[in-house]
């Protein structure tokens, strides 16, 4: 009877998860979405306490308290710019939990049928890789690991470790041989593989990898749900596994890279020297007062923010500037490239934090046709995502990447710290165009100057 009630609550939790995810698909209902999903989670967790015949309740409560307090505090305090690595670390912990469930199952001995045990082992491998890989992703984005480790024969070593992990895992299945040592070896190899897989990947590609590990953890949770005969875990895990896979593909596509390319090669490493062919003209500087005049008489202004703006913590100033321009009668919109920020949608969060309403924030499909009618485009801290070379030069590493058509506007003002190239090391044709002016300086200072000049007009 109790078991039936618990199963019913799991079913309800699964429904609430899907309903919550659905609500998260629109900015209007998104906040309600996480509340519904949270209700489903609370229901699932509370009803689990009532499984008949369970012990160790004291340990359970202690573990929950020990996990809840630091993660609550860190989640409340983390800066919005650091959100990607927080998602990575929380995701890694979920992968570790799935691996722990599998470890308990493998060490328990042959208590279930062979298929179930094999599924447990597969989930363990995926969960453990997600665990250690996510920790490395966190460390890289947090700046704890600053360089990408690459060496000769790296791929061969990685494949060898993965194969060794699979072999050890197969040997550790209880119906093959009950061996604690083999189970331990399996987990060590899986964790080492997660590290090896992630260390060569550069920081700019890390969001794709985090998304991939998110899908991995979902899959591992789904597989362990099968092992534990838990429908809520199966449904929630597989839904996340599938959606995470799609999201990973969308991110890789937006960056003009295949997933294989992200995972198995460093960006620009193989190309060595970067071609600068096709760039003609000169960089033409502008000062803040001229730029302010230009914008004050514009009827349509599009702002293209990049990660450089977020690093300079200039998003509040940029919103203030947008409001000042609206007072002057301009229509202002923000154009967001899918890879602006550190992952898709990250820039939207950073702008939302500064108070920019989401209906002023447009993605690439919505706004690309509008650039041709814009009087002024203000590019702040963005570079590769507005480089027209992606449209014309097949030899460029970013050739084919969808870009914002900033070059089609009547005037372009680029706020930039100095004359260097973007993270990909590619010269930006836009900066040399006849209709482009460069406003040099720190994003925060430059935008403050623009606001002052606008107010004095």
């Amino acid at each position: 009877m109790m078991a039936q009630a618990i199963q019913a609550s799991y079913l309800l939790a699964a429904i609430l998860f899907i309903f919550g995810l659905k609500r998260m698909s629109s900015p209007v209902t998104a906040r309600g979405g996480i509340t519904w999903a949270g209700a489903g989670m609370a229901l699932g967790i509370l009803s689990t306490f009532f499984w008949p015949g369970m012990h160790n309740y004291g340990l359970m409560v202690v573990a929950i308290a020990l996990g809840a307090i630091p993660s609550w505090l860190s989640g409340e305090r983390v800066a919005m710019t650091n959100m990607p690595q927080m998602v990575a670390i929380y995701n890694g912990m979920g992968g570790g939990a799935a691996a722990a469930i599998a470890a308990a199952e493998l060490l328990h001995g042959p208590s279930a049928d062979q298929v179930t045990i094999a599924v447990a082992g597969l989930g363990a491998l995926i969960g453990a890789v997600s665990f250690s890989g996510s920790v490395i992703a966190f460390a890289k984005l947090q700046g704890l690991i600053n360089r990408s480790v690459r060496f000769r024969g790296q791929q061969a070593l990685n494949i060898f470790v993965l194969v060794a992990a699979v072999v050890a895992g197969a040997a550790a299945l209880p119906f093959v041989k009950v061996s604690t040592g083999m189970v331990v070896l399996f987990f060590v190899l899986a964790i080492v593989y997660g590290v090896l897989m992630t260390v060569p990947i550069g920081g700019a590609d890390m969001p794709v990898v985090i998304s991939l590990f998110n899908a991995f953890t979902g899959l591992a949770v789904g597989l362990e749900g099968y092992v534990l005969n838990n429908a809520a875990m199966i449904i929630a895990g597989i839904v996340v596994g599938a959606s995470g896979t799609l999201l990973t593909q969308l991110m890789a596509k937006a960056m003009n890279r295949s997933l294989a390319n992200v995972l198995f090669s460093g960006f620009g490493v193989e190309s060595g020297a970067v071609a600068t062919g096709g760039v003609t003209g000169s960089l033409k500087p502008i000062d803040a007062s001229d730029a302010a005049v230009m914008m004050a008489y514009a009827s349509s202004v599009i702002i293209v923010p990049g990660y450089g703006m977020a690093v300079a913590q200039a998003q509040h100033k940029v919103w203030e500037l947008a409001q000042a321009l609206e007072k002057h009668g301009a229509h202002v919109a923000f154009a967001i490239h899918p890879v602006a920020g550190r992952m898709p949608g990250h820039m939207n969060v950073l702008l939302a934090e500064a108070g920019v309403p989401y209906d002023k924030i447009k993605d690439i499909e919505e706004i690309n046709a509008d650039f041709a009618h814009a009087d002024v485009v203000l590019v702040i801290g963005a570079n590769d995502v507005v480089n027209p070379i992606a449209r014309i030069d097949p030899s460029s590493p970013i050739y084919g990447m969808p870009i914002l058509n900033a070059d089609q506007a009547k005037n372009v003002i680029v706020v930039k710290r100095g004359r260097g190239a973007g993270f990909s090391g590619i010269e930006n044709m836009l900066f040399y165009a006849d209709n482009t002016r460069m406003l040099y300086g720190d994003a925060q200072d430059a935008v403050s100057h623009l606001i002052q000049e606008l107010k004095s007009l």
Partner: protein
Amino acid sequence: MITGFAALYIFMLAAFTGYEVIGRVPVILHTPLMSGSNFIHGIVLVGAMVALGYAQTDLERVIGFVGVLLGTINVVGGYVVTERMLGMFKKSKPGSGA
């Protein structure tokens, strides 16, 4: 008991559901959504609680304890950051000139 083809059907339908639900999400919500889906797989905590609840040896108790600890971090951290991010999305105030 979920076995054999019934399990495969659940896997398949859940995979379609995940694909479809995400497919219609605007790019502006991708980061909170990744965080939200990260929260949802925190349901792994329930499994870890069961593993700990039925643990008999000390080794099993240690593994179960670690599982519950890690699962809780996933759930609580995932919820807090998702809620914070989504709470920031506001629409223009009417009449603000937009």
